[in-house]
């Protein structure tokens, strides 16, 4: 794919295939580059999407425009691969995350119930005493 660099306008654009990059991947890449550039999207011919990148820096050089275009494609590809991987492995991911978070929360209820409210009250009083001692020392 060829990027068209317009140094006068200070922007770079190209038509990306909708069959390779989903709109979601392009939107995620655009979001990640938002601090560096404004990203515009237009419908192109035969299912393609025209992406235009306009850096936030003034008077960008040709090299800077070229680098920005490369970074956008790299990120779009990364996001697309991540989405594709998630489609295959999403269930594994959800299972591991659910297990980790569920264990941390569910067992907390059991752990919390091991001390009676009376014992917690006693501990709180002892803590107050220790706090007074520490405050005096400090």
């Amino acid at each position, binding site marked *: 794919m060829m990027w068209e660099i317009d140094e006068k306008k200070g922007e770079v654009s190209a038509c990306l295939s909708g069959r390779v990059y989903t709109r979601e991947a392009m939107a995620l890449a655009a979001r*990640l580059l938002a*601090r560096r550039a404004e990203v515009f999207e237009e419908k192109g011919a035969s299912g393609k999407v025209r992406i235009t990148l306009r850096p936030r820096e003034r008077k960008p050089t040709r090299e800077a425009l070229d680098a920005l275009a490369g970074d956008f494609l*790299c*990120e779009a590809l*990364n996001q697309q*691969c*991540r989405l*594709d*991987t*998630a489609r295959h*492995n*999403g269930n*594994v*991911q959800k299972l*591991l*995350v659910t*297990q*980790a*978070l569920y*264990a*941390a*929360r*569910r*067992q*907390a209820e*059991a*752990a*919390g119930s*091991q*001390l009676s409210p009376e*014992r917690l009250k006693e*501990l709180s009083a*002892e*803590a107050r005493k*220790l*706090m007074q*001692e*520490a*405050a005096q*020392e*400090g």
Partner: protein
Amino acid sequence: MGRSRAPDRTCTAAPLYSRKLGGRHLITNDWGHYAFLSQEELDRLRAGRLGPAESRFPELVDKGFIRERMDFKGLAGDFRTLNRFLWQGPTLHIFVTTLRCNHACLYCQSSAGRVVGHETDMSLETAKAAVDMVFAGPNRNIAIEFQGGEPLLNWPVVRFVVQYARKRNEAEKRSLFLSVVTNLSLMDEGKLEFLLDNEVSICTSLDGPAPLHDRNRVFHGGSSQETAVRWIKEIERRRLSEPPPRRRIFKTSALMTTTRFSLPAWREIVDTYLDAGFGGIFLRPLSPIGYAKKVWGTIGYGAEEYLDFYRRALDYILEINLRGRPFIERMAAVLAWKVLKRRDPNFVDCRSPCGASIGQVAYNFDGDIYTCDEGRMVAQQGDPIFRIGNVLRDSYDEIMASPATKGCCMASVLDSQPACSRCVYKPYCGLCPVYNYEAQGSLMGQLPRNMHCRVLKGVFDILFEKLDDRAAAEVIEGWLDSSRREVVK
């Protein structure tokens, strides 16, 4: 291993990951097993032509690499042991008792050199609420670690937390481990006796010989390194001279931070640790997180530079061991613990999902709670994205259900990362969403261009290369026979 075997029929390869290392192929699987195969063996395994009559076959069956002979019950047990943290909740609780510090370290974000003013000191009320939050968690193993700033600058809070946590644990009866990370410059007889009496482990910073350490860790009260080494030796003297069981004195440990200035001094750094009497060293790379990100151009380096430093230092350490002096490199030991023992070494930085919130929690001086200390450092630079709550306002359940907790958890599952999901080191590895966010702008990052990934992959390459060498492998296996606390931070 005595696993059940199905009758001989076919012998196709079970799901595996592979990487060419040297002249051979390393293969691993999700159960945490590994093997080295020749090109010809790997080809035949993949083609289903490596049969029961061959010498490697029983090993590959036992390790879960043959699809038709998998003992799911045993292998699931292996997975569970290797990933025990998935069933536990947070172990490590970091208390930032103050941001004040009497050092002005090149890589640290704390209020360098400022010791006056108490606006960044944790209050006693906040400290009590933080201890209560610690005990609201489910984990039976709890480690409270004091950090800063220099935690000894807020001594009343350190003292109170130690006393209150010990008192509370008399009722809770959990395994409670307390440690203080200090530069030791404010240590005195009274503080040391209190810490030793209460069995608080002492961890300090030691970046290497005095010129290097003092360059990294600027201190206007003399040589920071000489002060630290003097106290390290004093604590060790007491540890060795006191007869148990009056109190259990832990061996002092130290953290080494690798800056650009450390790279040529790998031998001197290891020698400094040997001379100070340490049993090992953790060759920790620096990450461009928080304040270090701002000064990365001065003190930072590339993955390849770090890996060259690591390889030279590890080779030297192995040589020392082969000459008869046991001395551990802790990063290799932690990773080897996973690879060889297939057990979770409780190392929160290298897990899938990572330890953010579910393995460690950081309590800032003002009561704000973060996914981890690195997340707190990002907030210190003005971005509170990794904040998960506040000890005075939120419950334990609320912090575990916070968007930052869930986001870090989801983003750090290696199976969902394109570069990680087929990586040979996936069973033992982990990524850091905070690093990804700081270096690449998103929690998920872009692993092929990620320094954290390149460093870990390089360290794993070096480790497996050593494990494939009989003499080096024996040394590393010997490290795992040491007590667990010696191996793991």
